[in-house]
């Protein structure tokens, strides 16, 4: 089987600073938590004045179609199930990176492969092969989000390596 790792000779493993990794966790957590706030209005009652702003803030990121939002008895998320999945994937992977300090670089084609479930789900639900499922949308989003964040992390890892090489 073809070995799919590459470029480790050019960009050897380099550990990102714990503070930077922790910052990535905090940012992804806040982004996800703001989205989930309407599901728990009593817990965030002091921040309810932010809700209209958050609705606008998330609007360029997502279509925010009412029937595709994740809802409970109190309210609905600002983002649809798929976008919530994407950012949940980002958050989950950022937590994984807190524990696993460095990552090998895999070929970028896996990013496109991770996008296939989303495309299949969108097409299948659009042409009524099956009805739209928030769970399917969430899971496909999570797969893509975590993979995209992995490549973002690898990029940042490369950046630090380049900076270190320049200093040396």
């Amino acid at each position, binding site marked *: 089987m073809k070995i799919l790792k590459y470029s480790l000779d050019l960009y050897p493993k380099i550990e990102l600073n714990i503070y930077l990794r922790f910052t990535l966790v905090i940012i992804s957590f806040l982004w996800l938590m703001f989205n989930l706030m309407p599901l728990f209005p009593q817990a965030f009652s002091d921040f309810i004045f932010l*809700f*209209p702003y958050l609705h606008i803030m998330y609007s360029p990121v997502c279509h925010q179609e009412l029937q595709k939002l994740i809802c409970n008895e109190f309210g609905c998320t600002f983002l649809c199930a798929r976008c919530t999945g994407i950012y949940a994937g980002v958050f989950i992977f950022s937590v994984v990176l807190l524990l696993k300090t460095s990552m090998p670089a895999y070929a970028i084609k896996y990013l496109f492969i991770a996008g296939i479930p989303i495309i299949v789900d969108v097409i299948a639900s659009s042409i009524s092969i099956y009805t739209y499922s928030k769970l399917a949308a969430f899971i496909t989003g999570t797969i893509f989000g975590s993979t995209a964040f992995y*490549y973002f992390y690898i990029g940042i890892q490369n950046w630090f390596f380049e900076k270190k090489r320049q200093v040396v």
Partner: protein
Amino acid sequence: MKKFLPSFVSGFGAGVLSVVPVIKTFACCLIIPAAATLSILLYQRAENVDEKIETGKAIFLGVFTGLFAALFATTFEIFITLFTKQNDLIAAFGNMQSMINSFPLDDHLKQEVIDLINMVVTELKTTGFSVIYSFTLLFNNLVINSIFGLAGGVIGLQIINAKYKNR
């Protein structure tokens, strides 16, 4: 100025697409990262670079693509609202009102929030312009587009650099 040109061109394109109905819902997720990747390709062409590009350069191009896209998108959005007196906030006001009313919170607090949005919506419907709305939109676009531009630059660079992996 030359170093900003690739970001300026792709940022302008992204800014235009960001105000086109339907397409604009993909503004952050797809258009801005794609524009950031395009700016790296434009930089490669303009500078005649045929080797791996450094991540720092991609971050620079990505962030500035996001910032230019935010400036253009906000300007276009403000002008469109000024002439049509219609925008997403006005369209979503009904939903927002019912969402806030459904929260199990103090009526006085809910009314204050609704009054604040109502003030902005009324201003937009009558004059087509609201300082609060314009500032919110600009701030929002600058922050979000620069973050997505950065991410797009970093990930897009790996797609572009993949062809140099054996060099």
